[in-house]
C-alpha cells in the first residue's frame, strides 16, 4: 500500500478574490476612476435609476457603465440612449461578478478619462454580497414592493453596502412598507449606512443620491497621495 500524507492548504476560497479586489481598487485610485458596485434584486429599478443618475451627473463628469447580466443586452441598449459609455457583460450563468470579471469589464470599457464607472451587478441579493468586486463603494437598491423585511432575509447584503436606495417611493401608498422600520433594521446591521428614498420614475430623491455620489467621486479622485505628477 502507498504511504500517504496530509498536506494542509488552509486557504480561504474567497481570499484570492479579496486580494485581486484590493489590487484593482488601488489601481483605480491611481487612475482616478471611482467604481460604484450597484446591486439589487431583479426588477428593483437598477437600470431606470442609472439612467436618472447619468442625466443628473453627465455634465460634470465622464461616466462609464458596465451592465452585467446572465444574458441579453436590453439594459445596455437602454443605457446607451443616455450617451454614456456602456458595455454589456455576460456572466454566462454566474450569479455574481468577482474582481477578475470586473477587471475584464473595466478593460473592455476603457477607464482612461472616466471619473465614475458604475457596475450594474447581476440582479441577486445573495452572491454579489459575497464577492468583493474591487469597487470604491457599494450601493444597493431596495424597491418598495419588495418589502421592508428584506434586511432580515438578506443580512449580508445590507451589512456590506455603503448606501441603500429605497426605490419606487411613488408607490408607497399601495404597499405596507414602513420606511422607519426599514431604517431601524438596516442600521442595526450596519450602523454607518446611508438610506436615501428615491423614485426613479418621478425623479424624487435623485438630487440627494447624486449629491452623495458627487461627494464620493470627488473625494476619491482628488486624493493627492496617489498623484503621479
Amino acid at each position: 500500500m502507498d504511504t500517504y500524507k496530509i498536506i494542509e492548504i488552509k486557504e480561504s476560497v474567497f481570499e484570492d478574490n479579496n486580494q485581486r479586489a484590493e489590487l484593482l481598487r488601488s489601481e483605480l485610485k491611481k487612475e482616478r476612476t471611482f467604481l460604484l458596485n450597484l446591486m439589487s434584486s431583479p426588477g428593483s429599478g437598477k437600470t431606470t435609476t442609472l439612467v436618472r443618475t447619468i442625466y443628473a451627473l453627465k455634465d460634470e463628469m465622464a461616466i462609464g457603465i458596465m451592465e452585467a447580466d446572465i444574458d441579453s443586452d436590453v439594459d445596455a441598449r437602454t443605457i446607451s440612449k443616455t450617451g454614456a459609455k456602456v458595455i454589456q457583460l455576460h456572466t454566462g450563468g454566474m450569479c455574481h461578478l468577482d474582481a477578475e470579471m470586473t477587471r475584464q469589464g473595466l478593460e473592455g470599457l476603457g477607464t482612461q478619462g472616466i471619473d465614475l464607472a458604475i457596475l450594474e451587478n447581476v440582479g441577486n441579493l445573495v452572491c454579489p454580497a459575497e464577492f468583493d468586486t474591487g469597487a470604491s463603494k457599494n450601493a444597493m437598491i431596495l424597491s418598495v414592493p419588495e418589502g421592508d423585511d428584506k434586511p432580515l432575509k438578506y443580512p449580508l447584503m445590507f451589512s456590506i453596502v455603503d448606501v441603500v436606495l429605497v426605490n419606487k417611493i411613488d408607490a408607497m401608498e399601495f404597499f405596507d412598507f414602513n420606511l422607519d422600520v426599514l431604517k431601524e433594521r438596516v442600521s442595526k446591521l450596519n450602523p454607518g449606512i446611508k438610506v436615501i428614498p428615491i423614485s426613479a420614475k418621478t425623479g424624487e430623491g435623485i438630487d440627494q443620491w447624486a449629491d452623495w455620489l458627487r461627494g464620493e467621486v470627488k473625494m476619491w479622485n482628488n486624493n493627492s497621495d496617489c498623484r503621479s505628477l
Partner: protein
Amino acid sequence: MHEMGIVIKVVKTVEDFARNNGVTRIDTLVLQIGALSPVIPRYVESCYPMVVKNTRLEDTRLQIDVLPAMARCRACREVFDVLEHKSSCPVCHSGNPEMISGNEFMIKEIVAF
C-alpha cells in the same frame, strides 16, 4: 446555484497547489464550509464529479466538514451556536450576538500520495 463556478475555482487552486508542490496523486480533498455560508455542501457535492472530469482531481474523493455557526453574546460573553438557539443567547436571552464563525469556505487540506 453558484456552486459550479466556485468549485471550478477550488479545483484550479488545488491543481496549482499540487503542481507547485510535486504532488502527483490526490486521494482526498477536504473542504470546510460554515453552516451560514451561502455555499451549500449538497450542491458542491453534486457538481464536483462534473468539474473534476479530465483534471488532476478526477479520482479524488471529496470530503466536506461543516463548521458550526458560533457567536458570542455582546451582553454576557457567552459563546453559543446561533442556529441551535435562533440567534438569541441561551444564558441571558439577549438577541445581539457577534458572529465568530459560520461563514467560512476553506480548502482545508489534501490527502496525497
